[in-house]
């Protein structure tokens, strides 16, 4: 298990006060905080060896190139990728998914084909496929969910058919916490010759993820949700699929030879990385991966599982609260959406904020899911390695106060002073 007390010391922001209260950061599904080692790696880069990478003949450039490619190795190892070249840097999960939409999907999805997603996709794993479907005359199929917020097991199989060309699905839902059975779904989709893209934005930071084990064709994730800096993410592509993919962005670095009217492409992964890359943040993501690897992803998952169990048991005791997502923590990541029919999530969020507690409120970029659940917005607390039971207790206590504040007309008279 994790030594959370020691971990917390590594995160400078956790010393911060908000409105005079200690920060209780429970918005990790939006973005995680960063340990000192990650921040320091940026400083080390810019103060010590900042230079453009590849082909530079001078010392700084060689050093930067080494560290930059070493970070790619680290990320590849972290997700069990067979080769570092199968990891392409992107800005975030969204760009990674769009890259697949603009390249592999644009070229391979044909009229009459079906793209299958679930009802709990983040907009970033839905809207790009809407365009591909429309442009290519394909159909988008949406696997429905049950009231408990899991893929409807009685229906899922019927959605993956001979017509399926791509299954694009999240491994962990950012709105519900649901862990989807992506390994068995991948197997099913492959049996019909379909390719599988896994949106790992909420899984890669929180549990062991191995692309060889999952056997997926694409895995997209964001550095900023896994202790890394903003502006860097990655797309893993299975080597034989990647080999055949046309480039996405065109320009410097991704070409081999250029004439006025044509160009040939560079080898992998450069072929997909036009222009000067986000060198510093790639290196810093490598440092984040080092940090997580040292903790052990099994331990990270175990910590979150236990904390989620604890949080669910506490939140359940607030009767006025509706909770969403599976109650079995073996099927759930550390994401805790809740809702009260009388108090809007925004009001809850503002109340919690004034106590130093950061949560997110809204549709969490999953409007179709919200619509399917018959609501517009939820409040969502989401956990990570540095969160504690004490913080959960604080959340629960202030939440009770908030509900009283907004629903009990007499509260003001009762307040001292």
């Amino acid at each position, binding site marked *: 298990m994790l030594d959370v007390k020691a971990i917390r010391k590594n995160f400078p922001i956790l010393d911060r006060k908000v*409105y*005079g*209260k200690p920060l209780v950061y429970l918005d990790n599904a939006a973005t995680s905080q960063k340990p000192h080692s990650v921040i320091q790696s940026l400083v080390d880069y810019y103060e010590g060896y900042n230079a453009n990478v590849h082909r530079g003949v001078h010392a700084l450039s060689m050093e930067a190139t080494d560290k930059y490619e070493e970070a790619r190795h680290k990320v590849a190892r972290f997700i069990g990728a067979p080769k570092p070249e199968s990891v392409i840097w992107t800005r975030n999960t969204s760009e990674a998914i769009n890259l697949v939409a603009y390249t592999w999907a644009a070229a391979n999805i044909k009229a009459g084909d079906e793209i299958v997603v679930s009802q709990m996709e983040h907009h970033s794993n839905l809207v790009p496929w809407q365009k591909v479907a429309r442009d290519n005359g394909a159909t988008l199929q949406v696997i429905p969910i049950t009231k408990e917020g899991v893929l409807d097991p009685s229906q899922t199989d019927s959605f993956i058919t001979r017509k399926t060309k791509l299954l694009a699905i999240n491994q962990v839902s950012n709105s519900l916490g649901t862990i989807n059975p992506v390994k068995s779904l991948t197997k099913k989709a492959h049996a019909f010759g379909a390719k599988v893209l896994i949106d790992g934005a909420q899984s890669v930071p929180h549990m062991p993820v191995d692309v060889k084990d999952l056997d997926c064709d694409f895995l997209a994730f964001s550095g900023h949700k896994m202790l890394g800096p903003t502006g860097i993410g990655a797309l893993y592509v299975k080597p034989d699929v990647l080999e055949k993919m046309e480039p996405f962005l065109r320009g410097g670095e991704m070409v081999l030879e250029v004439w006025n009217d044509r160009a040939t492409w560079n080898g992998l992964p450069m072929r997909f990385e036009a222009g000067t890359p986000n060198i510093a943040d790639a290196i810093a993501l490598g440092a984040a991966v080092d940090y997580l690897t040292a903790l052990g992803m099994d331990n990270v998952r175990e910590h979150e599982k236990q904390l989620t169990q604890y949080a669910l048991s506490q939140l359940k005791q607030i009767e006025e609260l509706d909770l969403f997502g599976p109650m079995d923590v073996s099927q759930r990541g550390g994401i805790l959406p809740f809702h009260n029919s009388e*108090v*809007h*999530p*925004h*009001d809850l969020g*503002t*109340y919690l904020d*004034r*106590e130093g507690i950061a949560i997110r*409120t*809204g*549709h969490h970029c999953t*409007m179709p899911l919200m619509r399917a659940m018959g*609501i*517009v*917005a939820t409040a969502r607390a989401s956990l990570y390695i540095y969160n504690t039971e004490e913080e959960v207790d*604080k959340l629960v*206590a*202030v939440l009770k*106060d*908030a509900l009283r*504040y*907004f629903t009990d*007309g007499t509260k*003001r008279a009762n*307040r*001292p*002073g």
Partner: protein
Amino acid sequence: MAQSAQTDLDDLYGDVILDHCRNPRNSNPVEPADLRADGVNPFCGDEVHLQVALKNGRAARVGVQSVGCSINRASASIMAEALEDKTPAHMSALAQAVRAMMDGKSSTDWVFQGHADLRALEQVREFPVRIKCALLPWTTLEDELTGRQD
């Protein structure tokens, strides 16, 4: 623990706001109506529905129904009260003044005369993400009014 937060929060959720939120004014739909507008903020699901019946160029009956967070609901109710007996031109001036106030621009005091409750919305400025909630009723009204002028 919560006491000190309430001190801050009471700036936002002042008595005026909470009163309007709990006892919305002019909330019955008006039918038939001369002005009619519906506004939605898809991000948070806030909704406003507005109807005004005019008589001699002034609001004779006002109806405003709102859904969503307390700031939106209170703002809608404050607006419902403020529109009583106003000409469309005066409604426009009110809406613009509220928007200017939320932008932190110097407020044109005369507009607020006789509408003390409007001042309560000023507190929302301290909570920037909530400004949109407070403005939804007013932008909905403005859209309808300028739409009519086109």
